[in-house]
């Protein structure tokens, strides 16, 4: 049997909207993945520490407060510093289209916008986790 894909769903920053993060966590679990949800108000440092400790394959970052341009790249950079640059990082939330190229350049693999089906997220992870 294949090893289960391990995903960390994380809420960086001060944003308390975690309906999406929880729904995605549950959908990934139903799709057979092992999911850890950090809870709200995590610093990028805390998220990366958990990711390294749990040896996850992927991190899903959720932010609806508009702080994504600061927080998402910080997570990617810290992962690289810790030698965990191969972890697949994706994000979701209220993120303007014009911010997406910058986030991708910074190393976020994909951004999922409101209205995304959880199926799409599941497929993306399955196809891209190394």
């Amino acid at each position, binding site marked *: 049997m294949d090893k289960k894909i391990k995903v960390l769903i994380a809420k960086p*920053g*001060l*944003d*308390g*909207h*975690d*309906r999406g993060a*929880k*729904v995605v966590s*549950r*959908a990934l679990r139903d799709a057979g993945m092992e999911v850890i949800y950090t*809870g*709200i*108000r995590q*610093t990028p440092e805390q998220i990366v520490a958990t990711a390294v400790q749990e040896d996850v394959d992927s991190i899903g970052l959720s932010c609806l*407060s*508009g*702080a994504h*341009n*600061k*927080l998402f790249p910080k997570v990617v950079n810290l992962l690289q510093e810790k030698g965990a640059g191969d972890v697949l990082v994706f994000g979701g939330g*209220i993120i*303007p*289209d*014009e911010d997406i190229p910058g986030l991708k350049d910074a190393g976020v693999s994909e951004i999922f*916008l*409101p*209205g995304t*089906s*959880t*199926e799409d997220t599941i497929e993306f992870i399955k196809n891209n986790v190394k």
Partner: protein
Amino acid sequence: MSCTDKKARLAERQGQWQGMVDKALSRFPERKEDFSTTSGIEMKRLFTPADVDAVDYNEDVGFPGEFPFTRGVQPTMYRARFWTMRQYAGFGSAKQTNERYRYLLEQGQTGLSVAFDLPTQIGYDSDMELADGEVGKVGVAIDSLADMEILFDQIALDKVSTSMTINAPAAVLLAMYIAVAEKQGVSSDKLRGTIQNDVLKEYFARGTYIFPPQPSMKIITDIFSYCKDNLPNWNTISISGYHIREAGSSAVQEVAFTLADGLAYVDAAIKTGLDVDVFAKRLSFFFNVHNNFLEEVAKFRAARRLWARLMKERFGAKKASSMMMRFHTQTAGCSLTAQQPDNNVVRVTMQALAAVLGGTNSLHTNSRDEALCLPTEASVQIALRTQQIIAHESGVADTIDPLAGSYLVESMTSEIEAKALEYINKIDDLGGVVKAIEAGFMQQEIGDSAYAYQKSIETADQVIVGVNKFTIEEAPPENLLRIKQEMEIEQRKSLAAVKAGRDAAAVENSLKALKQVAESGDNLLPSIVTAVKTYATLGEVCGVLREVFGEYVEG
């Protein structure tokens, strides 16, 4: 014909009709097997007088302005005065937000509603590390009284009512508001408005808690007590179901968990020695209005009736004003789509109409672009115009509670009330709201509903126009409102200037005094008012309270 004869005749006629239905069904099945709402309330094919058999008009429905307030809290409702049109707004700096407020007031808005950024809501100053990237994003950044003075510049605080969405640090922002008013020459007894001040739902639905539940409840009852003596026209709390619904609950759960929170606050206040008939009239509520039009109308009527009954039966309230549920409503942010955003204008219109038919006392209509960003001025104008059109053109405000007597609406009102009460009893069995939060009860219930709703969208059982049906290729939306990164830098600079220009010794003394009061258990408000007047910052004041009370950590 006697009443029994009429009932028998109805049953007979309904039996005959059912035969016709069965024939139709054998040829054309209905669109769905199950037409239940997300609250699990059956949308029957047809509602008849048999469905309202148990409803006693005098006991259960009654007259507007009278117990149990099913039909509304005022005797003349919108014939005297429309609901307050109050658009929640705030972004960037105090100066930018002040400009938006003055624009909204010019456009005919009748009350202000302040959105604070997340650092402010969690009691951090803009120069603190945790505020990084969040300053001015979801609301206005307020660090000290200096920002608050700019926020209300040229707005006469004795003329306007102001609602502030602030919870854990509500006492501090209220203190700043009092201080700004004083500078304008307005005494605190003239102030009208609301602070959200509803911390319980922060632990299970919204997330901007600071302190553990016990000291949080203490701060809340301190505010009740202070306002009773100093701000008699201030709504001391806005017990909020809005965020519970946004987090994914059903309509019934929204009513149940909100009222359960309300009961906890009343209970806490009574335990500190306050008289229910003195403070309860300043309690207010805040609900969501979502897509299912008829269920939403019934929800508001049910919430009013259930609250009135609970206040009377559980706490022995005697005054009508203590049992009267007054509430603000906001259309459902979570129902807005990023796809074909102009369709949101239609969604908001229907939701707003449901809120008005449900007898709301004040209303915020969302803007079409809010699934993408903060609303632009043009979008906010359409949202406000939506309310004005309902008020002035639709005619629904010309009579009171026009859907009363509908077999469906009365039956559903009773069912929502009964189902919400079941939840409240279950929370009682768990040992009350705080225990239920610790056990994760509400979180689990809301999470289950949110997941079921998402599933129903993904299977297209629930159609969302433009998302899972009637989709089109779209160009990325243009003209979105963006908060510039420089704003954060500017805000930090002005905070540094405030800190450099204030009387440092006065600040230090006021914070020391506050700490002593916090440790002693005395009412915190007077020392918070003193501290903010010295330009002690929000982060400094909350820092002192964090030291004394500790911080809540999600379990």
